[in-house]
């Protein structure tokens, strides 16, 4: 039992934090609002650091590490509202392709090419949530690779297509950097990656990984919002003193901080459970996502309240954090969705 990150993991995270503090300011995020793109100079920097391929097997150009290594870095992405699809490409698409590659469909030459593309950073991916196969896919507009789900004779099937082969209609999102898109595509034998039990296995693992990395991004967002709000509360004066000295304000901020404190180990523990593979990973993922969603929603709520009217403006950076939080809190299962999933799993254990 040793529930902590290694020094190497912490150092890597700190290095990423430094890079992102320079390369992903709120002005950069605003620029991405104007011209959302998947691959950017910043993306190339992250790729050169090995981050996009962190969880891709070494045989395919990656570092062969796990979600435990990735989660602290995704947290940093959340902290700066990173516009590029790091969590989905590195945390979900890479491991999913690696899963597919270990099955019969691994013979598919595309899969190896895609894995290598994820590792090198030449490729960004969008992954559909299997529960909503007909809804727009986050990140699809501008992605290089689409990993999609279709109904098949043996249940859901997993398909992969190079984006050039499917025109994508962009769908507006509250947060334009989400790049929602509706791919016009028809499932074909060429695009098929897995069906039947293999697809079900891949889809279940994908849902858990996506819940956990999305949870990690929400942790970073919540932390950033609470920190900004505490700074603002120290600075802003009313009645002749900083508003942060008023207890009503303190208690709002403290309540959000307590939720965040308890969401963190839940996300880290779930990342470990998935890498380890021995326990009930679905349950761990549900605890992680429910807690992270609730923590980020509470941080959003109190941040806006403590900022007052300035927080309600386009000019104040806060809304960049709020909008990403609201989107991600619902993505890959809301807190309530995950509580419902948890209760089913707890009941399934009963005689």
């Amino acid at each position: 039992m040793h529930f902590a990150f290694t020094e190497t993991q912490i150092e890597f995270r700190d290095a990423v934090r430094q890079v992102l503090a320079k390369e992903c300011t709120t002005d950069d995020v605003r620029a991405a609002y104007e011209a959302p793109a998947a691959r950017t100079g910043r993306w190339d920097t992250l790729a050169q650091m090995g981050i996009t391929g962190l969880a891709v097997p070494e045989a395919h150009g990656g570092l062969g590490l796990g979600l435990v290594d990735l989660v602290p870095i995704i947290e940093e992405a959340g902290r700066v509202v990173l516009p590029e699809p790091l969590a989905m490409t590195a945390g979900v698409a890479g491991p999913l392709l690696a899963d597919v590659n270990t099955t019969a469909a691994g013979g598919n030459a595309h899969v190896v090419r895609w894995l290598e593309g994820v590792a090198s950073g030449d490729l960004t991916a969008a992954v559909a949530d299997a529960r909503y196969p007909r809804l727009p896919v986050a990140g699809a507009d501008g992605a290089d690779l689409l990993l999609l789900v279709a109904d098949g004779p043996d249940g859901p099937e997993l398909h992969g297509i190079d984006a050039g082969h499917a025109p994508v209609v962009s769908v507006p999102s509250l947060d334009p950097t989400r790049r929602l898109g509706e791919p016009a595509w028809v499932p074909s034998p060429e695009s098929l990656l897995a069906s039947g039990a293999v697809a079900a296995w891949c889809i279940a693992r994908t849902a858990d990984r996506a819940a956990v990395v999305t949870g990690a991004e929400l942790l970073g967002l919540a932390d950033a919002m609470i920190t900004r709000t505490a700074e603002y509360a120290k600075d802003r004066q009313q009645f002749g003193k900083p508003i942060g000295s008023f207890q009503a304000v303190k208690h709002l901020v403290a309540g959000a901080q307590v939720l965040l404190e308890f969401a963190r180990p839940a996300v880290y523990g779930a990342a470990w459970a998935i890498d380890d593979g021995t326990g009930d990973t679905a349950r761990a993922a549900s605890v992680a996502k429910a807690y992270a969603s609730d923590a980020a929603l509470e941080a959003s709520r109190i941040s806006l309240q403590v900022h007052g009217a300035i927080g309600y403006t386009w000019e104040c950076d806060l809304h960049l954090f709020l909008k990403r939080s609201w989107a991600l809190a619902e993505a890959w299962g809301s807190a309530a969705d995950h509580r419902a999933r948890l209760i089913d799993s707890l009941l399934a254990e009963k005689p």
Partner: protein
Amino acid sequence: MDRPMDLHYTDAQEAFRAEARSWLDAHAPAPRSLASLDTAAGFEAHRAWEAELAADRWSVVSWPEEFGGRGVGILEWLVFEEEYWRAQAPLRVSQNGVFLLAPTMFEFGTDAQKQRFLPPMASAAEIWCQGWSEPDAGSDLAGIRSRAQRSDDEGGWVLSGQKTWASRGAFAEWCFGLFRTDPEAERHRGLTYFLIDMATPGVTVRPIPQIDGESGFAELFFEDVFVPDDLVLGEVGKGWNVAMATAGSERGLSLRSPARYSRAAERLVDLYADCLERDPDRARRSADSVAQAWMDAEAYRLNTLWTATRVLDGGSVGPEASANKIHWSQTDLSIHRAALDLLGPEAEFHGDGVDAPWLDGFLFALAGPIYAGTNEIQRNVVAERMLGLPRG
């Protein structure tokens, strides 16, 4: 050393678990078979049980062997607690001593104090209560007025004043209390931490019935109570610092182990499954809060392992203990509130039925946001010391 993250207990820890489990299976009294520890008879029954625990060195596993422990680490203690709650063994009548005073005594006590007090604390031969709060000093602990006056002739201090809300004070043999030794000093500076024999002349105890009618706490009156110098814990005038160490244990890792809540959350899921059979509509309305309560307990377990690892790696627990206290007290409430909703019209049934522990547990959980420093005070601490907001 760069140890990778690992949430498995080691084989040695699992062997320790197996040993604890088989001992508890053989020895633990049937669940709820002892009378309430807030009654005179129940207090003695709980003392006898802890003596049995101590005889086989299970009462304070993390203490050094010379004081009655097994010298194991914090993780093994957590494993033991998991087994203790799994066995539904009795509440610990010695909890104020074992979980609160002992860590402080290990840090601040003299060798003589440790030799004198720790073994009988481990065996429950001497049970402790905490004498801090006063009628006019609750949240504002530094405002206490009870005094200790120097008596150079006798080599000690003469205590006078009133303490209140002392849990287990009605029956305890010893009390750790905070008294003002320097009325001139700044209010945090003039305090001293005393170890007080409740049998000393001048101590009067008046039990106070709690919300459930039992004498769970007491008022303590001190009239010229002599306490010798060797019963001062830490330095004279430094009582506030010593007390904050105790408060850290009370809010942080020591007092409430996660197993308590994990076990209650498991029972809550059983109750839910049962309700699904009897009254499926009611059950479904509660599904979300049952899941939330289970998650609260699970998040607490994970956070405890996270914190324990940090401590084992040489870190410390600072104001996070306040966040911890808020979380465990809310978790206890969320579990019991969900249970009462599942019981519905039966929630108010009082007595010895199978579901009775839920109502008792609920009444106890209600005190959680109040004792160990109210949750409002803990939020102040989180805001000021974790996030740097200015003091009001």
